[in-house]
């Protein structure tokens, strides 16, 4: 008999997700993804000065404050057809890459590792054996017996205090947990170390952004980081040297720990390369502009159809019409007034029409975006596949490195095709982190060289014409393609729409009733114990969802609801 699981919102802040699954014969046979918060940012922005929009949009979300600020200034600059000084591009690019590295490290270790790693089992590990295994995989200096013993003692004293329950998403001893105690211990040690390195990455955002959370250094037209190498109150050589030391420190952790862990844990859960593919059209946008106009980018982006890398079509500039004309949003299954078919964001309407949860009708506050009328998956996997298809050397090199390491641990060749999966999204995120790190390093060098040439420009003054102008800004954010679309009339915002990564991935069925990426990825997922749907959580977490939610078990026969502890996703936004 089919059972229904409901992943329900805890709260209404930050845009919560509810996932319903029908389980039959030990696997998911039907799934619905439903955003539980209504979107209304455009109502707040209407009539405001477009130069202020970014300061409000970065309050949409608790994780990705920075990314909404970046996309917003780009949208307004695009409407004005502005050029942005090189220094400003490089400084923004450094913030983007440092934020991405921070975000990906936190996601893997703090927000999803416990889906795969049983920390209680680590107490049974032999630290000597763990050190041998870890040293065989990587020459990271902290992979030693002393560190592992210390971590085990720390963990034991934590468990002894009876506080384990604070980890809401812990599934200790679940039958789907398969790592040996020594691997669990290594992962726990790296979990601790990751806490230090994620904050190291965030220091770059703090120094350049003046403040975290909520950076303050942006402006439509550039940045507000005055460059004067002789003044203590501006961006000085000392600050830049400090940033460089932080970049170098991060690199070792990314290469010798994060990439290795993902490859090894992925190889030990190789069965999870069979699940979770879902929608295999992939969309990403180019990012990290290298010129003032946004026609050259350090990281390429584009569109891949049906998992076939040879179909790759690049997106090449901030004026790209292939991207601009391809995006539409459907409200057929969302709680908005519809009837006009899928609409382009410039023409988008946001008029609520709530109906209750209807399995075959409307069931979400999230709209369903399409790219040329097809669903598309966004995020690090889409980004990495598109960059690989574009022949981006750092991507192909780092991707091969992760696949080779995983193949060595698995004792069998793991192909690129294995990436179309739950575990593949984690692998791609690690590859992307390595690429982001190399890019961050490059951007630092470019900034230094440009300052060395005597160019101190950071800002061009925007001027708003009478009449109506339109613009869009895109950004390849940690969770994927983010775009802001704005219509400006007489210097005031007339319409504003944010099409965010979680909309692409978490959206409900579309105009053609096709399932979205979350929904499609859950099909045929195994579920060993419906009361503890760890496997459902694994697949949803692999997307790095921005949501806070808990699992409620609904037995449709007995109408009994049992709360199972929450998914532990950090927070954020899903609209």
């Amino acid at each position, binding site marked *: 008999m089919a059972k229904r699981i409901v992943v329900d919102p805890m709260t209404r802040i*930050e845009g919560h997700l509810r996932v319903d699954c029908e389980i039959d014969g030990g696997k998911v046979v039907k799934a619905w993804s439903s955003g539980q918060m209504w979107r209304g940012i455009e109502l*707040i922005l209407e009539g405001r000065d477009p*130069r202020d929009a970014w300061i409000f949009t970065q*309050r949409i979300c608790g994780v990705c404050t920075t990314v909404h600020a970046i996309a917003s200034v780009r949208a307004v600059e695009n409407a004005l057809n502005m050029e942005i000084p090189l220094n400003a591009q490089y400084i923004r690019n450094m913030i983007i890459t440092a934020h991405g590295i921070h975000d990906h490290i936190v996601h893997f270790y*703090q927000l999803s590792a416990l889906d795969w790693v049983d920390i209680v089992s680590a107490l049974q590990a032999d630290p000597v054996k763990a050190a041998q295994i870890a040293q065989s995989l990587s020459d990271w200096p902290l992979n030693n017996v002393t560190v592992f013993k210390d971590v085990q003692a720390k963990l034991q004293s934590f468990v002894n205090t009876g506080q384990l329950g604070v980890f809401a998403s812990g599934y200790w001893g679940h039958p789907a947990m398969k790592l040996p105690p020594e691997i669990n211990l290594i992962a726990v040690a790296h979990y601790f170390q990751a806490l230090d390195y994620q904050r190291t990455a965030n220091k770059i955002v703090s120094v350049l952004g003046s*403040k975290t959370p909520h950076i303050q250094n942006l*402006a439509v037209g550039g940045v507000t980081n005055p460059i004067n190498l002789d003044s203590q*109150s501006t961006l000085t050589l000392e600050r830049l040297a400090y940033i460089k030391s932080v970049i170098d420190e991060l690199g070792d952790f990314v290469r010798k720990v994060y990439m290795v862990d993902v490859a090894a844990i992925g190889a030990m859960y190789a069965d999870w390369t069979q699940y979770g593919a879902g929608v295999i059209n992939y969309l990403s946008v180019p990012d990290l502009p290298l010129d003032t106009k946004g026609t050259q980018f350090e990281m390429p982006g584009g569109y891949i159809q049906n998992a076939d890398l040879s179909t790759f079509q690049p997106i090449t500039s901030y004026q790209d019409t292939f991207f601009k004309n391809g995006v539409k949003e459907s409200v057929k299954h969302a709680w908005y007034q519809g009837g006009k078919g899928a609409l382009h964001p410039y023409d988008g309407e946001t008029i609520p029409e709530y109906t209750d949860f209807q399995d075959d009708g409307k069931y979400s506050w999230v709209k369903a975006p399409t790219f040329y009328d097809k669903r598309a998956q966004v995020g690090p996997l889409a980004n990495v596949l598109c960059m690989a298809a574009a022949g981006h050397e750092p991507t192909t090199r780092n991707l091969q490195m992760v696949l080779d390491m995983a193949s060595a641990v698995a004792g069998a060749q793991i192909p690129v095709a294995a990436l179309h999966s739950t575990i593949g999204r984690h692998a791609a995120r690690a590859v992307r982190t390595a690429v982001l790190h190399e890019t961050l390093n490059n951007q630092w060098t470019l900034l230094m060289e440009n300052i060395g040439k005597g160019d101190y420009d950071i800002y061009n003054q925007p001027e708003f014409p009478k009449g109506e102008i339109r613009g869009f800004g895109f950004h390849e954010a940690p969770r994927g393609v983010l775009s802001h679309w704005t219509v400006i009339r007489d210097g005031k915002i007339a319409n504003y729409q944010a099409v965010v990564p979680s909309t692409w991935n978490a959206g409900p069925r579309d105009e053609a009733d096709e399932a979205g990426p979350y929904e499609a990825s859950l099909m045929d997922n195994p579920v060993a114990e419906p009361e503890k749907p760890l496997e459902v959580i694994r697949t949803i977490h692999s997307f790095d969802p921005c949501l*806070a939610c808990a699992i409620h078990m609904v037995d449709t026969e007995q109408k009994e609801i049992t709360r199972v502890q929450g998914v532990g996703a950090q927070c954020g936004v899903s609209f």
Partner: protein
Amino acid sequence: MDAVTQDFEVIDTETSRAPMLVLGLGNILLQDEGVGVAVIERLQRRYRVAAEVELLDGGTSGMSLLDDLRDREHVIVVDAVRTGNPPGTEVVLRGEEVPAFLCNKVSPHQLALSDVLANLALMNESPHQVTVIGMEPLSLDTHLGLSELVAGRLQALTDRVIAEIKAAGYEVEALEQAAWNNNISLMTEA
């Protein structure tokens, strides 16, 4: 928006961190949800607070607050809370009530915040004392600025936070209106 002066002091958090953190949480785009941020902005603008007390607008942040919370003597979380009392009611939670509050999910941010506190506990870097001072919201509609009811009680809530800071032995001095710090942009007032 005016250019914001660079403040590089952020780098030296290890040596210069204040023993007390007053952390305002909330989403200012959802009306009364932003009451915690509104209290921080009022404190920053209208008061001079002892150097041992750091005021932080945490927005809706989660794990990025890890470094701000670790090893503090005392953290005061100011937030919108739902305990079933009438809108505008002040709520103060201390000691054992705080973890219970986080587990019962009455605050909109508890999940993110409890993740942060769980990680700090695991690292043995928990703040020594956490107090939650909150207010029941009237409206969580998509709107910038507090409801009239909660706006009318903002000063009372701010006074409650000030009393807590003073009880810990730190000074808070109200500024004359002419001396208010107008460089603090008020995100919470429409």
